[in-house]
């Protein structure tokens, strides 16, 4: 098995799906000639040609509208929104057209929207967003957020093969920082299934994206220093949520911490907390805690950005509070 980076895993997944199915094509800003703002699609234009690797105008509404139209007539577009923050320019296309077409016309819309998202790269408010909460709320969209190269490749393949519109949140800070073992060849990760990245008995941490790695570090630390056994559940899919996995973990441990990089208020952590409070109330030995970014736009100043974001230390502090309850 090869050890590759998170972004390589995504590229490989895209490449393999394009080889496998000629109806798959890419569209987005700077993805062809330039190879993509992060070089995810470097070399694709040369190999697959300009019919299948399309450099679009600077207009997210056009990108997403065109992708929706192409999907409706049976193609498999993978649209890239250069920075997830820009998706709002195409918000109407996504929520009113992509998300509702199957409900209204009984036609599948097999499109994928890749959204490089996340902060911690000193990108400021317009290049750091985690916009999943808006789309989590829209019925008709699937949402995935891999945290490892293995999940990244498996999920991009699964997303492309899914007949529904799938929003694929790739965390840009993980691109070249996270390496992992990835099987050569074809495999998928089932959309709607989470993954226990670390088993434990005392506290469950439900998380996704870049925060998974911080949670794992925090779990190591409190196990070593305090003897507290922490279970880390990587959601991988945000919609549909793997409710059974979440509830099963909480029923085992009795204590829950939800951690995500998105702003805390209105982040999907609230929905998960409500689910657990409703369906696992009698299994709770402590109040449910949430960690998220502070409710402000992403600061540009590195010191402020650090204060703003969740990190290993904040997770450790929350775990210790829960352990002591």
């Amino acid at each position, binding site marked *: 098995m090869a050890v590759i980076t998170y972004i390589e895993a995504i590229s490989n997944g895209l490449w393999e799906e394009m080889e496998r199915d000629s109806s798959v094509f890419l569209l987005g800003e700077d993805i062809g000639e330039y190879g993509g703002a992060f070089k995810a699609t470097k070399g694709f234009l040369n190999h697959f040609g300009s019919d299948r690797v399309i450099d679009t105008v600077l207009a997210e509404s056009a990108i997403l509208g065109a992708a929706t139209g192409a999907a409706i007539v049976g193609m498999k577009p993978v649209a890239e929104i250069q920075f997830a923050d820009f998706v709002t320019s195409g918000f109407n296309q996504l929520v009113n057209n992509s998300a509702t077409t199957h409900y209204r016309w009984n036609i599948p819309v097999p499109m994928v929207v890749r959204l490089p998202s996340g902060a911690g790269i000193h990108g400021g408010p317009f290049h750091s967003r985690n916009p999943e909460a808006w789309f989590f709320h829209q019925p008709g969209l699937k949402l995935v957020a891999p945290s490892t190269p293995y999940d990244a490749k498996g999920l991009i393949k699964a997303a492309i093969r899914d007949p529904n519109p799938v929003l694929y949140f790739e965390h840009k800070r993980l691109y070249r920082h996270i390496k992992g073992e990835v099987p050569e060849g074809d495999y998928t990760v089932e959309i709607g299934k989470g993954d226990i990245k670390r088993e434990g008995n005392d506290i469950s941490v439900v998380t996704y994206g870049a925060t998974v790695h911080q949670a794992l570090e925090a779990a190591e630390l409190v196990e070593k220093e305090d003897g507290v056994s922490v279970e880390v559940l990587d959601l991988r899919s945000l919609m549909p949520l793997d409710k059974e996995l979440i509830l099963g973990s909480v029923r085992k441990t009795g204590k829950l911490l939800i951690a995500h990089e998105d702003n805390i208020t209105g982040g999907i952590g609230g929905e998960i907390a409500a689910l657990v409070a409703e369906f696992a109330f009698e299994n709770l030995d402590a109040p449910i805690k949430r960690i998220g970014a502070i409710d402000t736009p992403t600061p540009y100043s590195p010191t402020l950005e650090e204060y703003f974001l969740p990190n290993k*230390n904040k997770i*450790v502090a929350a775990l210790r509070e829960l352990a*002591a309850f």
Partner: protein
Amino acid sequence: MAIVDVIMPQMGESIAEGTITKWYKKVGEKIGKDETLLEISTDKVDSEIPSPAAGIVAELLFPEQKTVDVHTIIARIQTDASIPVPAGERSPSPSTQDPKPKSISVPLPTPQQEVVHDVIQRESGRFYSPLVLNIARTEGISMSELEKISGTGANNRVSKKDILEYVQNRRSERTSAIPQGTKPGTPSGPVEVIKMDTMRKAIAEHMVRSVHISAHVGSVTEADVSKLVAFRERHKSNFEKKEGFKLTFTPFFIDVIVRSLKDFPLLNASVDGDSIILRKEINIGVAVALENGLIVPVVKHADSKNLPGIARAVNDLSNRARTKKLMPDEVQGGTFTITNPGIFGNLFGFPIINQPQVAILGVGAIKKRPVVIDDAIAIRSMVYISMSYDHRIIDGALGGKFLQRVVQYLENFDTNQAL
């Protein structure tokens, strides 16, 4: 004239001390109830502290800028009231200001958390989480027992770990307290080992536990049920035609037991620590033998059913017991149990009480026997009735009286009644 103590209040769960920043009154000054006496500063909030009583400031025990532990007496008020008001009662409620974050590593302040704790406090002041109460319920730990468990959670609460440890210790105490003789294990010689199934394990656990919980004593009596037998003979074929099932003796015995329980309610009770719980409902458990075990479905509210009603309930429950179609609440909530050692022809039995009840009555086989009536020998249908009961609350006299009442009702059965 009384002295009222003013204590350093605890402004939040995790706060251990407070600093007196300003006294608003001097010694000797008058102060009204709830009038601000001092201002304090803690890690989380600065707060004005009202006086718990009206009167004159008698003592100010610490100067400004002094930091003291929470619950320390910091001042004394001399009141006019003759009955002193304990200072502990009058602690001010936590401030609703947003607490200041201590450092970057502390997650978002959550004042809501403190409010939740206040709301869920139990009488004893200890917080029991939903999980802990759930476990307590499943393991049959009463509230009074729960209060005695020591807690290692926040504010000495019983945590999941604490209650699970307690249950574990309780279980091992029980098994170790049971005299084993030699170490349990396979006896010597050729053997065949059969693994217990779930029902068998449950029966074994329940029986051993019951013997351990109750002080079992037994009483045996006999009853002349000739009238009952004659009545049943007369009515049984009509009954079977009308109802579609056979009329057994069980409904008659249940009916008599219900009436006797009304006369002697202590037999329809439970024991909880040092309390006797008189049950207001009369739900009769009927032990049903199964292929490889037994189960005790419950005739609920047997006191509101007539004989045919009891017969129908018993028939329905026993059928579904044998076909494994009982619902969970049909095997719970019993207040007294009847069993039938006579079903295989035996005279009487020594049944084990079905927890958390305090008595179980066994009906032997009804047999024709020669008995002496008015110094002559007569052949009568006789039955032995044995009852095991819990000597913690039912003494021999009461047990005996109850049994005699059952006999009375049986022997005075009104054969002219309609069925």
